[in-house]
């Protein structure tokens, strides 16, 4: 591996536990999320000494620590750090790590481990976290000697944030934490077996430009790769110059503003009608920093078969994985989009845009207007999101959980700024939003952060209210309560003859629970109280909890049924 040369390096004799802290500081870490326990206690002892330089947030469960670190990373583009003890502490991190792996979120997770002489002896709180975390980490490593700490920590941060980002887990035995050694730190700048960013191929760029310039009905679908590559400006320039309709995946949204005239909405299972229908009518399909998840593509045998496919991608293993690319442009999106821009011709594609507008009108008349301006008595999730839009004007960071409310949030939330939609996309982790919102608020303290959560997911990590209580982090929590696991119930209604197996929830008094944590709160059951409640929530300087009782059995439409073609999208 290549280390940044550090000329005037003085080695100092310190312990492994202190070295870990010094490595974190050298990497610019200011906040970390975790939970102490036996095998990590030496590091916590150092955290106590360094508490003026490192803000450790005690979450109420290790899963919350990883999600908070994810929220922090996703709004800030920095590496999120989580720390836990061995055994159950370490295994509790796994859900968040798996989530970060599939959603390409840079994390460094540090776990304590039993002393090295006890490894393999089934010691108290010993678990093979390296074995367990291998399939869900970008890289992992077990440190058994203090002298390994600087190099391994440098590699961990480098790997987590470079190329396609991802989670790294470093397991450190207790004896290595106590061991003394001569410490010095160099940042890692390269590893010989690891090529994070492919070299841009000019011929591929030219081929792609040729296809785009000659297209009559081109369409762009962008994903999180635009945000991770910090390529928002370059992306906007490409879209605006070519005039190509651009649709997004749920992790891509907010890379350009929601109300941008060339933004044609969301693709996928609960995406917009136009981009789903027209995926199967375009002649050139330009995928940018997205990975053709099955929730985006539906049935692959009938997906975008008529078009030439161009795939801009940083990870070579994503090319031709699910959808064959006629032209693959490998590289960092910032670099490839900047390089292709001068090769592209200006265009407007007016009649093609009209097709998108026509489909939008159908969707608006049949679905959107009823979702956001309902005339029926019960409250809809859509009108709550619309109410929040009215109040925030699209400037807030919206953190959603998983389920119906998530799809409604992604469909209707307005975003003006990038890195504003934080949600669990690939793994679909219920319980993500509450802790992720805590991390998001700490990663972007100047921004309003609103968590939108269902009554099911809320109760999966509800203990993180304790973290909010203790830290007073001013997150706003909106629970859209339909007393159901709504998305599963919707599937039961549509595909299992309404057999509502274990989806109805008997819920507690959420407002009373929030009050128990001294969080200001209220419940809304009537439309006339909604706007005022949202206003009160936003105006509140501290954390706030708002429960909205919504219609129990509303469904999210449009919907591409599982395994169907995207152009067989259902409006009801």
């Amino acid at each position: 591996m290549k280390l940044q040369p550090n000329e005037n390096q003085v080695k100092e004799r310190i312990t492994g536990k202190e070295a870990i802290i010094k490595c974190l500081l050298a990497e610019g870490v200011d906040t970390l999320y975790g939970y102490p326990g036996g095998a990590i206690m030496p590091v916590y002892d150092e955290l106590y000494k360094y508490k003026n330089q490192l803000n450790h947030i005690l979450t109420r469960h290790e899963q919350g620590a990883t999600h908070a670190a994810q929220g922090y990373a996703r709004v800030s583009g920095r590496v999120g750090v989580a720390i836990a003890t061995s055994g159950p502490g370490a295994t509790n991190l796994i859900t968040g790590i798996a989530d970060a792996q599939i959603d390409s979120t840079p994390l460094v997770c540090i776990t304590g481990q039993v002393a090295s002489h006890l490894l393999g002896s089934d010691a108290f709180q010993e678990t093979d976290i390296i074995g367990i975390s291998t399939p869900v980490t970008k890289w992992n490593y077990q440190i058994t000697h203090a002298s390994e700490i600087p190099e391994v920590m440098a590699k961990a941060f480098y790997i987590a944030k470079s190329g396609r980002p991802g989670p790294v887990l470093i397991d450190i035995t207790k004896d290595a934490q106590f061991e003394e050694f001569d410490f010095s730190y160099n940042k890692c700048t390269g590893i010989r077996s690891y090529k994070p960013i492919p070299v841009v191929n000019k011929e591929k760029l030219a081929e792609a430009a040729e296809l785009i310039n000659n297209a009559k009905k081109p369409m762009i679908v962008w994903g999180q790769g635009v945000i991770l590559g910090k390529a928002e400006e370059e992306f906007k320039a490409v879209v605006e110059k070519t005039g190509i309709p651009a649709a997004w995946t749920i992790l891509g949204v907010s890379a350009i503003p929601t109300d941008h005239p060339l933004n044609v909405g969301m693709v996928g299972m609960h995406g917009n009608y136009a981009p789903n229908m027209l995926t199967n009518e375009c002649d050139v399909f330009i995928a940018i920093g997205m990975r053709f998840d099955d929730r985006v593509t539906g049935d692959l045998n009938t997906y975008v078969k008529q078009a030439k496919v161009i795939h801009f991608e940083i990870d070579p293993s994503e090319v031709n994985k699910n959808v064959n690319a006629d032209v693959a442009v490998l590289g960092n999106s910032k670099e490839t989009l900047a390089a292709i821009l001068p090769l592209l011709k200006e265009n407007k594609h007016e009649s093609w845009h009209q097709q998108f507008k026509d489909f939008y009108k159908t969707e608006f008349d049949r679905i959107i207007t009823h979702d956001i301006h309902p005339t029926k008595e019960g409250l809809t999730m859509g009108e709550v999101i619309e109410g929040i839009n009215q109040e925030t004007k699209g400037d807030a960071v919206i953190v959603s959980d998983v389920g119906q409310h998530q799809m409604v949030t992604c469909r209707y939330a307005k975003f003006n700024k990038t890195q504003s939609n934080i949600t669990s996309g690939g793994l679909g982790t219920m319980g993500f939003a509450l802790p992720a919102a805590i991390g998001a608020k700490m990663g972007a303290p100047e921004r309003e952060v609103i968590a939108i959560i269902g009554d099911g997911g809320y109760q999966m990590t509800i203990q993180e209210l304790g973290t909010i209580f203790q830290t007073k982090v001013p997150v706003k929590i909106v629970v859209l309560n339909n007393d159901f696991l709504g998305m599963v119930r919707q599937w039961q209604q549509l595909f299992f003859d309404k057999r509502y197996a274990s989806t109805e929830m008997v819920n507690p008094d959420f407002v009373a629970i929030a009050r128990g944590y001294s969080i200001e709160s209220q419940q809304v059951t009537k439309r006339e109280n909604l706007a005022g409640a949202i206003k009160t929530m936003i105006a509140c300087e501290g954390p706030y909890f708002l429960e909205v009782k919504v219609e129990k059995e509303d469904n999210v439409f449009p919907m591409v049924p599982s395994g169907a073609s995207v152009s067989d999208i259902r409006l009801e």
Partner: protein
Amino acid sequence: MSEEKTYTVSIYTENNIGLLNRISAIFQRRHINIESLNTSISEIEGVSRFTLVLSLTEERIKKIIGQLEKQVEVIKAFYHTDEQTIFLESCLFKIKSSLLFEEPQIQNIIKESSTRIVTVNKEFFVLEKSGRRSEIELLYRELSAFGIMQFVRSGRIAVTKDEMKISAMLAEFRE
């Protein structure tokens, strides 16, 4: 594209604990049976070499190569057909020594199959044979008629007819 074939996969890696686990997880997740697996040092100092045999379509093997190369500590992965490689397996047979004298046929089998006698003592003798799978299987059938005390066969090892473009890659990193 859709026809299954035998491929030899050669993976050049850093020599780190846990990498075997990481590599095997790629196959386990996708229900891909590893027909044989061998690990050893390679022609490059400090670089390990995994040799795997898989029966897959070319389309599938390309995706697997992508997943392998994505691992931080994998330097490069290649796949080759049998025609593109020189390959063999090795095996050992442990057989009761008395049979060597009681069954003269065994001596003929040893001679005709160019099998090497590794050791002989009063109780048993050990035969070693390297070659194609079919040759080893034939020998196994012939010897099993007399009784085999122990048998073991190695994974496939293979070198490619074409150059492995890996040294240049590593040299590039050092620059």
